[in-house]
């Protein structure tokens, strides 16, 4: 992706998240609070740093986008009110808003139900909201 396209994404992420990664002091409290950190390739504090530094490309491919539970523990505990989850969310939106980039597709549903047929409908609906445009 071109540098200017990446920069456009960065601007968009900053705008829709309303978060300011420059306030981050890299204390790591978000990553320490994150229940999904073990499954992430880029930890929340590092995610914030990447946005600050303009390294957007690897974030677009990052597993973190899909592993973040949106539990907001990081937002709650960040001493500097950076709101890391909002940044993760904004990058996730930047990905799924592109044509053909939905993370969850209708065809995936039978597989879920096979996995656990008591899976609540609501969960599927909210997963759609979160992972698909």
């Amino acid at each position, binding site marked *: 992706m071109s540098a200017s396209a990446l920069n456009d994404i960065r601007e968009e992420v900053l705008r829709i998240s309303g978060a300011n990664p420059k306030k981050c002091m*890299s204390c790591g*409290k978000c*990553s*320490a*609070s994150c229940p999904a950190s073990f499954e992430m390739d880029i*930890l929340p*504090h590092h995610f914030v740093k990447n946005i600050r530094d303009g390294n957007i490309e690897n974030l677009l491919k990052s597993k973190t986008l899909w592993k973040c539970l949106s539990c907001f523990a990081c937002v709650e505990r960040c*001493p500097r*009110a950076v709101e890391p989850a909002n940044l993760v969310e904004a990058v996730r939106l930047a990905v799924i808003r592109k044509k053909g980039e939905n993370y969850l597709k209708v065809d995936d549903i039978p597989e879920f139900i096979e996995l656990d047929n008591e899976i609540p409908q609501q969960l599927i609906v909210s997963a759609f909201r979160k992972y698909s445009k």
Partner: protein
Amino acid sequence: MQRIGAFVCWCGSNIAGTVDIDAVTKSAADEPGVVYSAEYQYMCSEGGQLAIRRAVEEHGLTGIAVCACSPRMHETTFRKTAAAAGLNPYMVEIANIREHCSWIHKNRESATEKATILMRAAIAKLNLNKPLFPGESGVVKRALVIGGGIAGIQTALDIADAGYEVDIVEKSPTIGGRMAQLDKTFPTLDCSACILTPKMVDAAQHDNISLYTYSEVDEVSGYVGSFSVKIRQKARSVNRELCNGCGDCITKCPVKKANSEFDEGLSKRSAIYVPFAQAVPNIPVVDRENCTRFKTGKCGLCEKICGTKAIDFEQQDEIIEREYGVIIVATGFKPLSPERYGEYLYGQSPDVLTSLEFERMMNAAGPTGGVLKRLSNNEKPKSIVFIQCVGSRADAKKGKTYCSKICCMYTAKHAMLVKEKYPDIDVHVFYIDVRTPGKNFDEFYRRAAEQYDVNYIKGMVGKLADEDGRLRVIASDLLDGKQITIDADLVVLATAVEASPDVRALGTMLTASMDQNNFFTEAHPKLRPVESPTAGIFLSGVCQGPKDIPETVAQAGAAAVKALGILSKNKLIGNPCIAESNELLCNGCSCCENVCPYGAIEYTEKEINDHGNRNNRRVAQVNEAICQGCGACTVACPSGSMDLKGFTNRQIMAEVDAICRT
């Protein structure tokens, strides 16, 4: 009509290199009121000053305009020159053609033009100058120190040793402050009580020092040199003259369950108590909220046992009124309560302590006799986790925005003290940065890491979980880039330093400005660090911002010296450039009073003779001893009644007109 002399300085090549001195001097001669103009290489030198004096004499000058450097640099010099030549020193105006002109411009032509304009403005103002005479006021030779921690004690001792009387007003029943609660002190690890208690005793025994403990300042009025203060000495329920400090009452008191403030609630005390064994004064206090006699009317055991009949349940608060020349604020701090950070389980697990609680636990005279234990089961911990920066360095919504400055050092101290006493305990410290500037400070911290095997981990703790009695610490290890878990038996939180509660009210009483964190503001952050912007109010210790004991003591001494600078004078010469209200114009609206940062404006009901029309009106009056001449009121006044002597509205408009003239 003035007879003005204009003097243009080269300042070597500093001004002459960029400004055409000759041109400025010549055009000065054409300005209204100017009867003489001259130039000189260095106006501030002896030769330059002599040239001014001669010109005053030869040309009968009534005012002097000097076009030179910033008035901050040499205004006083030229005022003295004027006085030596027999002029009123306020008949001097300075045009700053160096800092405001030659230094910041390159183009000679435009710099010369600007210098000419600045010269014109100064002369236009000078045409309207009037001689001004500073007022004088007396000095009460007594100092008030508010707060009896190490800061207040040191300031009081220094002032008292210099021969002046000092009163210390301390809120709690004893002096000593936080330092009395500490175990050992960094960076030398000497015992805190061993170095503090002799000073407490010195203060108590000093002929020039009077202690008012269990007391608070109720009211302050007046101004530098002559403050009147009402001190409320709270009822101790013990007669200070009769009590001999035997402590029989304390032993006898059946109430044993009140929380000890001194031990941060880790131990219990009786209703009648002295905070700790070396308290000064060693006179008990009845805590009326916990005393059975005050709650139910029954008991009175302490009264019965007391051999000197010192117990006095009827004692009332006493108000003492005193005059002081200066006031030194030394109200210190309180560690922030970590309860709002639920993730640390403070208040939920007895094994999570604040650093100050930890100090008490490590102290041989403390609640556990200096034995480190888990309060949940009285067992010795195997692993301890220290967490730094709790509540510090945060967004304003989430805590304190500043670094508390002392916690990196005291955490290193705690870690080493544990390792020294119990080498088998694992000690981990979570940090964001280790901040240890200071003489021998970084060496101290490195010793913890290198010699004592303290495990420093870069990263914050996310949360604690109580796992079958042990505390699971979930944290970041940022250098490894992963989340880690450590099982701890004891967790210690290095909580932020917070200004003492209710100092805001004190600040208002003193009209001493405070920052958004309730720390007192200094008059200049670099050049006047121990003075409040309010004349006669000085700052000592942590009330001005977080600091350790060495810095506190240094500042306490500096505050004493500044206070002595006033106490040693018989008269204070005021600044005559202060506000003045025109009673005929004043409509009593209070606008000026609301903006005055020094509380210099009062109102009186007065009969005003307005062109033969007599009526009673509420009018503003400026207290000349308090006004600092900041001019805020002159701008706020909607009726144009307030004016600043030496900087009147007319003078300023004349400057503006001169600048705009083409």
